[in-house]
């Protein structure tokens, strides 16, 4: 038997919106069962499994979106857990898995899935075996067995940063806006640890969570036509590192000699979703030495 026949059969032949509503209903139904630690559909459901937070919908006809909650702080471990699992145990037809702040997209090839459904559904024929239904059912199976408490340990990455001066022309502005000294901004920025929620916007660009709001600063009124690669910036309550030279409106407070994106490497990005990042202040001389070695 494949999957989750209750959801599978009930959903077939319904329009997409009702389909979703129906799934959620069934999921909540199952959540109650799971919370009591019972067996469901002949299968033991883990207490606290990811399925109780999950919301699955199509992202076009070649990808599926799994939403795992509302806020990035609560979804972080869930996303890391799901990605680690799918990397090790890819779904049939899986092309790639891409994390967002609170969601994960799984790209797949419907043509690879089609033959699988025809076998599975021989006893319960439907008018068209929809690959999306198949992928969703597989995902529900997987989510039921996963628990965010089993998330793999995070990698920690230290990023050396030369703050202020030529490397960080906007450090003084950020300090002034927040009634702090430049040194205090550096201390606050480099004492926190940040989580990498996702990589996006530009190749290797990390969306970091965990910046102290005391050093928040709005985007610059006029974006710079060119911000050098390695620049460490602040925009609102977010901080990030520019992996490639690009125009940008963030307040640049420092620069790292590390290369965040190297297309000839595999993986090409220094960071990945789930990493923990710390910034370590280095002197101008250390920055120059580092650059010289590279």
């Amino acid at each position, binding site marked *: 038997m494949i999957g989750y026949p209750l959801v599978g059969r009930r959903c077939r032949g319904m*329009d*997409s*919106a009702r389909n979703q509503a129906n799934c959620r209903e069934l999921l909540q139904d199952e959540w109650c069962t799971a919370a009591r630690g019972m067996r469901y559909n002949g299968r033991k459901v883990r207490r606290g499994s990811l399925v109780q937070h999950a919301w699955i*919908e*199509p*992202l*076009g*006809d*070649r*990808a599926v*979106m799994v939403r795992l909650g509302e806020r*990035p702080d609560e979804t972080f471990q869930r996303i890391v857990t799901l*990605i680690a699992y799918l990397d090790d145990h890819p779904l049939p037809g899986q*092309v*790639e*898995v*891409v*994390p*967002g*702040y*609170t*969601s*994960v*997209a799984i*790209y797949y090839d*419907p*043509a690879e899935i*089609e033959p699988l459904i025809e076998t599975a559904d021989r006893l319960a024929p439907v008018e*068209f075996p*929809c*690959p*999306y239904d198949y992928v969703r059912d597989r995902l529900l199976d997987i989510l039921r067995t996963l628990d965010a408490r089993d998330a793999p340990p995070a990698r920690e990455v230290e990023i050396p940063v030369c703050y202020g001066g030529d490397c960080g022309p906007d450090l003084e502005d950020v300090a002034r806006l927040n009634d702090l000294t430049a040194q205090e901004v550096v201390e606050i920025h480099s004492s926190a640890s940040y989580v990498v929620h*996702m*990589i*996006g*916007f*530009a*190749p*290797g*660009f990390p*969306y970091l969570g965990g910046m102290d709001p005391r050093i928040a600063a709005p985007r610059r009124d006029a974006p710079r036509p060119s911000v050098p690669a390695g620049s460490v910036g602040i925009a609102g309550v977010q901080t990030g590192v520019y*992996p*490639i030279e690009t125009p940008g409106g963030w307040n640049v407070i420092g620069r790292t000699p590390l290369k965040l*994106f190297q*297309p*000839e490497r*595999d*993986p*090409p*990005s220094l960071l*990945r*979703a789930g990493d923990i990042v710390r910034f370590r202040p280095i002197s101008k001389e250390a920055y120059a030495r580092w650059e010289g070695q590279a």
Partner: protein
Amino acid sequence: MTIIVHKPGLLTTVQDMGRYRYQRYGVVVAGAMDPFAYACANILTGNEPSAAALEITMVGPKLWFAQDALVAICGADMSPAIQGERVPLWRPVLVRAKSLLEFASAREGARAYLAINGGLIVEQRMGSSSTYLRAGIGGYAGRALIEGDELVWGRSTAAGAAIRRSLLQEVEDSPHGGGAADRPFIAARWSISSRALPHYSKHPQVRFLPGPHYGMFREDSLGDLRQGSYVVGPQSDRMGYRLEGKRLMLRERRELYSEPVTAGTVQVPPDGMPIVLMADRQTTGGYPVIAQVISVDLPLLAQTPPGGRLSFRQVDIREAQRLLLAERRDLAAIRAGVRMRVQSAPWTFGGCWHERA
């Protein structure tokens, strides 16, 4: 086995099926805007459907072939010609050495694909030959072609050799008699049936699935999307098509967390003007997504020039995937058809060369 670029055209790039598996690192997929025409061009030259080919945009290049080459041009009609003689589309063509292939402006469609048997050879980046223009990665030196570039193609495939043999045979057996040697090119007398081809239009109807945030939009805006029409704006490019028309409004403004987006994702920035994300889209986006254009209609979009007018029709995931699988079967059938066509000696068909598709 070299092509020299005499004139580059408006935007001519090396593309393939796209660069997958690296979106999680923020690397855009890129690849052919019209994957169907691109795959057809490869199939007609005996390549794997995923071989590197040229994508030619709006105004075509002038390309000098140093050696004989088996090519196919699919997609937009840019009146390609050699020595003033039109080179027909959607079929294999044997271009003779020392010929100049000249493209003009697109008369129909917006993007043409030129595939060459053996595939274009460029350095692969992250498993793909596609050009990612903004980051300068992949393709030919990470950029669009410029005058003087030299493109190299790879070794002939067995299927390519069979197609080439059959083209030469066709000419020799033709009632008008031989003379294959002194023609600038030899085009097959058959082509992909027009029934299998998408109908390019300046007013295409594209089908969509409701996007994740469909329900966040006002009822009248959803009506505008379904019944109205949207003009493809002048700033539309490989990254996205900016549409102009009735503003699409949210019931209430909400900040969203960035999430993955894909080809065909229709996102709506605060100004209410939708953007359809195309091949060079960013991997993630933070604007509400009202709709998702289905895969089989992306070629129609890719072939709609700025100024074209789109209308939208809603379908469900079941229909979208049924159409996608049907398109895959069409491509497989075209591939099998080409193989059959060139494996049988033409005389066994009894004058099949008189049929012209």
